């Protein structure tokens, strides 16, 4: 700005500032923390602003740097951007030329979590098919929870209210802070030395950093192998931890965990009542039916006039008797007739029968019947049998 040149050109001042700014050693490589806004990606570069509460810094990132990014930058991401401050002379604009970009704080943690979740999902640890049903009537419920916490009290109260038949074993654990993951794992391993039917992890609400222990890879892997069905009730409805994905049942409050782990005693009592009444009603029905059946049978003629049964039998006996008599007498007549017939035939054969016709039979004194003259000699005494008597004679 001398007298011969009372002005400088735009290009000159921009060039001058470029030289000054880019000459600052610290600007050659520095890391800026800020929140991404107005992120626009083109084929050769991405343009965006980094901002904090008060200021905005324009940024450029060439595609070769973009290529190696481990995440997809978007508006609102809190990031650390490393690069150099340079001036874009045509527009008099200083910008951060970003060579490395990474998520910061929560964003970084989220990124890590996402990667872990992806890995464990790929391994099948979160598969729906791995989920087991919770026992309907648990014997012993284990609870991993902060000692003396509201969640602990809430669980004990609600479990006992709903289902007093269950035993509860508390496994106190740190649920927050750097040592929490290890302590949770210790409590988990301890719980498996007991005979449990259900295991509950519980913790009240908190910031997502507070719930970080429940994202611990070692813990999640251990719970995936749990011998008993598991329930998680960690944080609020909107908070999801990796533990929530690996347990058999995820709920959002300790009360809901108590409800998931136990049957409702009131309902069971009602059920018993219903069963009691059903039994009475059914039995009354059965008895009534039996009674009706009985009175139905009792009204049959058989029971009304039992003597008819004997009458029938008597008649039957009488009939048989008559038939026997008849058969017997018929038999007698036949026999008599037969005898008469034989008697007549015998009559025809009677030797004395011929005497009636004038014949006689002559015998010697010894009874020998005389059939020829040679049978006698002079002097024998003979007896001749006639029809009406005997003539004694002597042979001459």
């Amino acid at each position: 700005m001398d007298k011969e040149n009372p002005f400088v050109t735009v290009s000159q001042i921009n060039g001058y500032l470029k030289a000054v700014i880019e000459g600052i050693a610290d600007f050659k490589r520095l890391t800026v923390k800020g929140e991404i806004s107005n992120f626009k990606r083109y084929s050769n570069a991405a343009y965006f602003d980094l901002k904090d509460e008060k200021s905005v810094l324009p940024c450029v990132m060439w595609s070769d740097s973009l290529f190696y990014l481990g995440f997809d930058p978007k508006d609102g991401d809190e990031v650390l951007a490393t690069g150099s401050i340079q001036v874009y002379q045509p527009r008099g604009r200083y910008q951060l030329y970003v060579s490395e970009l990474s998520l910061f704080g929560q964003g970084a943690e989220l990124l890590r979590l996402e990667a872990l979740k992806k890995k464990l999902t790929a391994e099948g640890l979160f598969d729906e098919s791995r989920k087991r049903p919770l026992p309907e009537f648990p014997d012993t419920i284990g609870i991993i929870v902060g000692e003396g916490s509201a969640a602990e009290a809430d669980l004990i109260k609600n479990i006992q209210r709903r289902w007093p038949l269950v035993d509860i074993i508390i496994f106190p654990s740190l649920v927050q802070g750097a040592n929490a993951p290890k302590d949770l794992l210790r409590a988990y391993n301890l719980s498996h030395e007991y005979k449990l039917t259900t295991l509950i992890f519980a913790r009240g609400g908190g910031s997502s950093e507070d719930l970080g222990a429940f994202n611990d890879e070692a813990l999640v892997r251990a719970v995936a192998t749990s011998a008993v069905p598991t329930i998680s009730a960690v944080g609020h409805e909107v908070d999801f931890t990796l533990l929530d994905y690996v347990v058999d049942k995820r709920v959002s409050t300790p009360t809901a965990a108590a409800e998931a782990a136990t049957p409702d005693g009131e309902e069971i009592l009602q059920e018993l009542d219903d069963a009691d009444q059903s039994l009475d009603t059914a039995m009354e029905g059965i008895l009534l039916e039996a009674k009706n059946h009985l009175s139905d049978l009792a009204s049959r003629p058989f029971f009304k006039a039992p003597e008819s049964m004997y009458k029938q039998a008597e008649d039957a006996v009488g009939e048989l008797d008559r038939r026997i008599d008849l058969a017997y007498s018929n038999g007698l007549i036949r026999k008599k007739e037969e005898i008469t017939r034989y008697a007549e035939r015998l009559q025809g054969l009677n030797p004395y029968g011929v005497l009636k016709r004038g014949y006689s039979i002559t015998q010697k004194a010894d009874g020998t019947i005389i059939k020829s003259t040679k049978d006698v000699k002079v002097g024998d005494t003979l007896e001749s049998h006639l029809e009406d008597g005997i003539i004694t004679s002597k042979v001459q």
Partner: protein
Amino acid sequence: MAEKKEKSFEEKLARLHEIVEKVEGETLPLEESMKLYEEGKLLVADLNKTLEEAEKKIGKFQVASKTSK
């Protein structure tokens, strides 16, 4: 932790349901119905008693020792 010698609550409740269904649905000999009815009534009384007694001794829980074995 109760050692189970007799049937569990769950098993008894299942048996009760089975009995109710049998008595209600099937045409069983009267004698058998009576037997089932009696068994069912005993179960109802028994289960009710179990629940009532458990309610009386509420507050039973233990805290596992903090140090792992």
